[in-house]
């Protein structure tokens, strides 16, 4: 703590380009170690969870401890499938972006369990307020891949009419809110949605995701304050993937404590979860959802993970962190871990996995072919230009009508 008082204390990550990353200083609880309270537990009684780490899969990829959600193998295979598809989809989209097929892309490599399990553990009717890195959740909700791609390449079938940057999906049919480019704004909106759900006496819950970097925004405080005051049935997920573009989680306030600990400040339940452990994410989400549905209030979940890729297609992480840092990351790869777990259970094989990867690759390739048949940003066709002037208001106002005429469309 003692810090000489002759300069601003500016926290820095342990490793920079050129350094050899070594995370042995991280004291991560073992699988099974962090206890599981009842869903109606008083937040005051479970503060330790914010400093623990909910983990189910141990170093042998065996599921252990109270948090084991004991999911059917079918469900696990489904999860694996969604994660593999997400990863392959991301890979392909990145390549296509490099080829100029879309303006921008953001991968979720290494974070697939967070979005897939975080959505699979909920009901289809539960409402999702995601950030831009939860594409796995949309896939888990069964969104058509072609539609996702049409959005990303802004073509004539883009359901957002070319208005949004790629990856900023909207899908009301999947209870998937419209993703914002402005960080964090969805967090308190989710709480408002949940308040309305309480009002209506409905049993749906709202789940929202932001990054650890985003948790510094005022909207984080808005969400937590309203959630605790009105006991809104909300799951507030903070994905701590260690990085916010170029800044380490220590710049977001992760030096002095965990992000799950923010929950303690509001007297709400807080969990810290191994975000690379499909079973842990599923169990924690299920617990939080049951808690919310039971009227016991919101839960803040810190999903501890690592952003394995660049922030987006616009940055180069080798300029601010060691190239191989992800390899040193102690929580492993969520897909490999679930896969090995299933193999251990005798419910999966390397061959089936290879076949799955092949199937998913073909699915992605085929989907892209179809998507591209509806146009690309670069070559068109796009949505009709006149749609640019629509949906500003429910009915077009005179100024927009004139502007449309002025453009001659």
């Amino acid at each position: 703590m003692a810090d000489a008082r002759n300069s601003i204390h500016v926290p820095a990550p342990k490793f920079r380009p050129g350094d050899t990353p070594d995370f042995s200083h991280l004291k991560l609880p073992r699988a099974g170690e962090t206890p599981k309270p009842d869903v109606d537990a008083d937040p005051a009684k479970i503060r330790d969870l914010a400093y623990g780490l909910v983990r189910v899969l141990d170093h042998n990829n065996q599921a252990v401890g109270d948090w084991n959600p004991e999911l059917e193998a079918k469900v696990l295979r489904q999860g694996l499938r969604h994660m593999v598809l997400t990863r392959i989809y991301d890979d392909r989209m990145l390549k296509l972006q490099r080829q100029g097929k879309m303006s921008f892309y953001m991968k979720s490599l290494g974070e697939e369990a967070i979005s897939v399990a975080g959505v699979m553990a909920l009901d289809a009717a539960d409402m999702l307020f995601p950030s831009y890195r939860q594409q796995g959740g949309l896939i888990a909700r069964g969104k058509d891949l072609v539609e996702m791609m049409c959005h990303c390449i802004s073509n004539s079938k883009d359901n957002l009419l070319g208005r949004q940057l790629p990856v900023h999906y909207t899908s009301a049919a999947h209870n998937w809110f419209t993703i914002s480019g402005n960080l964090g704004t969805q967090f308190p909106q989710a709480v408002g949605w949940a308040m309305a759900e309480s009002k209506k006496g409905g049993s749906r819950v709202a789940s929202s995701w932001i990054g650890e970097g985003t948790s510094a925004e005022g909207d984080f405080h808005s969400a937590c304050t309203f959630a605790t005051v009105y006991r809104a049935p909300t799951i507030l997920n903070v994905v701590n993937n260690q990085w916010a573009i170029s800044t380490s989680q220590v710049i977001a306030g992760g030096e002095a404590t965990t992000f799950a600990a923010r929950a303690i400040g509001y007297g709400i339940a807080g969990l810290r979860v191994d975000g690379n452990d499909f079973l842990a994410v599923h169990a924690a989400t299920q617990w939080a959802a049951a808690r919310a549905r039971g009227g016991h209030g919101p839960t803040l979940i810190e999903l501890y993970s690592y952003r394995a890729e660049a922030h987006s297609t616009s940055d180069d992480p080798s300029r601010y962190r060691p190239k191989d840092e992800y390899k040193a990351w102690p929580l492993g790869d969520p897909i490999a871990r679930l896969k090995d777990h299933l193999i251990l259970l005798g419910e999966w094989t390397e061959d089936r996995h290879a076949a799955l990867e092949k199937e998913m690759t073909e699915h992605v390739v085929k989907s892209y072919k179809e998507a591209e048949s509806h146009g690309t940003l670069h070559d068109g066709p796009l949505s009709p230009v006149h749609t640019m002037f629509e949906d500003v208001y429910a009915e077009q106002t005179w100024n927009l009508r004139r502007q449309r005429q002025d453009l001659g469309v």
Partner: protein
Amino acid sequence: MPAKNMIQAINDGLDVLLDTHDDVLVFGEDAGYFGGVFGCSQGLQKKHGLDRVFDTPINEGAIVAAAIGMATNGMRPIAEIQFADYIFPAFDQIVSELSRIRYRSAGQFTTPLTIRTPWGGGIRGGQTHSMSPEAFFTHIPGIKVVVPSNPYDAKGLLIAAAECDDPVIIFEPKRLYNGPFDGDPNKPALSWAKHPKGEVPDGRYTVPLGEAEVVREGSEITIVTYGTLVHVALNTAEQEGVDAEIIDLKTLAPYDIDTIAASVNKTGRCVVTHEAPRTSGFGAELIAQIQEECFYALEAPIARVTGWDTPYPHAHEWSYFPGPERTARAIKRVLEA
């Protein structure tokens, strides 16, 4: 028809909305049990229940964000921001979210919500209880902006706003809450009871958004204004014996260009007045558009009578307020030009 002041009219409007629309919720800082610092929601929690009319934490951004979330879950929230001066913590949620959710989701999500907030000066509120920030909001595509100038309109516009599928911000001229105000702070306070627009019908009625009203016909000059200054303009015209046509805009976004242009094309002269600072105030937009529409009819430059380009001062409030004297001077200048 019962005479009501503007607070009572708004209260009545909220009551009607709560009665007739299950999806209407009313909330804000001190807006629940207490009924709002100006009393606009007084008695409504008791009547409609704790979870339809309630208090919020002091966080304007969260109020708007939560309202957005509620609106996307089928509600028609009516949020109160305690003073327009305190709307800025919510500015990001308004600019980046509220105004664009329909657009960016291509209509899959909509946010039919209403924000009401006391606005303008003239009550010795100093720089943080007197602002007129409407111009900011007129520059945000996707937001409708409303400023009533009397009890009848306040209720009718509120109901129209709440029933409208777009987000609407209503700036309520707090100096008019208790009575019309013609710009002279030294005169005894007037009462809405004696004003025709203080007659407020019971039950549901609407005043359409986007339509201005010619509140005084005239042929010499057009005065375009809204809110408190409608009364100042009327008073000035009477006092000075000017044959002025006075337009109460009521809705600033989208504003009623047809009514304005018809009048200026007729009179050939125009003054625009508002209480907000002059530079980049809403008057600028009006003038830019009027000169485009009515250029060949104009016989003199369009004049602005506005608040100064300073914060709203406390002690020198009446030197800041664009009252009858300054309005008269501008009219004269335009008439003589």
